[in-house]
């Protein structure tokens, strides 16, 4: 098998697994894990964009200039993307702490319900009459089932 193909499978695999984690998980921490995995996959894909086998790292050591150097641009981009990712990760975890403190749960469905309730309370309307009414009813039925 081609090495390049394996690398791409890894990148797209991480992207798919991360997306699945974000879309299908119901626990907020799990969703944040999904975001981190998705970002890792995207970073790998970006680095692979112009990778060619047989190149060497884009660093001149002791005045020795390699014949084929790897493309330094995606490396710089991935560097940037990794640091951005960790900043957002920290913020996401801080928010998760706050949400848990406020609602006592990190289950996405419960958080959504409490959020709807909060918005409805603040506006002074009954919850079932809100726009998400059909969904809320469905959710409750799922809960009973």
């Amino acid at each position: 098998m081609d090495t390049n193909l394996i690398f791409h499978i890894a990148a797209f695999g991480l992207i798919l697994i991360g997306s699945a984690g974000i879309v299908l998980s119901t626990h907020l921490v799990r969703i944040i894990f999904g975001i981190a995995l998705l970002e890792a996959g995207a970073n790998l894909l970006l680095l692979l964009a112009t990778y060619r086998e047989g190149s060497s790292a884009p660093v001149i050591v002791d005045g020795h200039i390699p014949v084929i150097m790897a493309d330094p641009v995606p490396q710089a981009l991935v560097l940037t993307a990794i640091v951005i990712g960790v900043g957002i990760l920290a913020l996401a975890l801080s928010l998760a702490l706050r949400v848990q403190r406020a609602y006592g749960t990190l289950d996405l469905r419960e958080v959504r319900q409490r959020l709807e309730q909060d918005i409805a309370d603040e506006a002074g309307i009954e919850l079932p009459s809100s726009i998400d009414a059909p969904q809320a009813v469905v959710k409750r039925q799922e809960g009973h089932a």
Partner: protein
Amino acid sequence: MNKLALLVALPLITAFLLPLINRASAFAGRWTGPLILVVTSALGISLWTQLGDNAVAVELGGFRPPLGITLYADQMAILFAVAVSLGTLLLWPNGGEDRVRQWTLALILAASGSGLALSGDLFNIYVFYELVAVVSYGLIAARASAGSYAATLRYLVVSSFGAAMALTGIALVYQATGTLNLAQLAQLAPTQLNNLQGLAAFVLMLIGFGVKAELFPVNTWVPEVYATAPTRVSGLLAGVVSKLALLIIVRLLVLVFHQPEALTVMLVLGIMGVITGELAAWRARDFKRMIAFSSIGQLGIMFIAFAIPGKAGIFAGLAVALHHLVVKPALFLLAERWNGSLSSLAGAGRTSPLAAALFILLALSLIGVPPLPGFWAKLLVLVELSEQAQPLYYLGAFVILAGAALEANYLFRVASRFYDKDKDQKAPAAQRMPDLATASLLCAVLAGSIFVLTPLAAQIEGIATQAADATHYIQTVNPETLP
């Protein structure tokens, strides 16, 4: 002209130093931020007047494109950069506990918004976009209520997903072309991105940047965030930031992605946005979420308009976008005190007659009643849509008309509540002076534009012509041809 970078650098350095300035003198801390925004707005306007028909490009770091990062300023870019600065100034955060942090964030929002409008490098756009996203999280969570934390976290999840998708799209573009400079991409696109991979990259970036532009499948955050964020922040996000995301998508369409399928995808998603947004707004029972959903509908109209190929689409879309840019922040300012259910607004017309009058003016323009600017913007979109003479574009026109009918229904339902006599309920609180003054100012701009409609339209058409001209972009940036 290399002062262009100051539009980003000045607010940024002020933001870095603001906590220190505030520690030295609370007075200086209070006024430095607005002062800097006045300076950048003035700078932007002076750059605009120098600009004329010739766009300029600034090579950051002194590296010739495509090696370095380029800032590209045409009239459209500077227009939106100034809009961000002015918008942040008008909607300067004034509530909550941790004010210095909020002011810092607002300054960064002004810097990153201007940069987003000006940037001419694909990855740089991504970084700016993430910066705008992180700033918005901070500003929304500044409300410090349980709901705002939960809404911010849900927004963060959607937005991070979108950003990762956009990054994937950028990786695909880089894989196919080996460059990130938009001008050089415009040169290479016809040969190297005019294929399925290019289309996939566009769809990924559309999903990614569409999150902030309230694009149909990735707009689940909109009602929650606008209902729980501080109203001024909601006004900024819906009014200004969403247009910036749209601006990027338009730039990408003009320069890089020329597939007809790309326009079709945008058209379909825009139609879905209008349908879902207006229907949800019609069913909404509280004021904030009503205008939040109506904002999804309006942005759907913009997506439909920008899906019209060529200059005509940009002209029409820009007209709707500028109209919405003025109307939506004003509506959110009114929502500061009218944050309750629609039925609790009974009698608001007597407690705050000015606010009620402003709302009716805004509503009329939003629906598109002549002679208000909203009418002309919508008319423009409808005319251009019908000229396309294709079923999907006719459908778009029909959906916009049906949406206008729904809008008329729900907005007038609210307006008639204002003058209801409901003995059981006490009338809602009167509007606060600063909010009312800002909203009046925006309404004055809206009403004033009726009298200068012809020159204004000519001006917007000029901006659109310039923005739609990919050759002009390439010539201005003038990237070196690499072996």
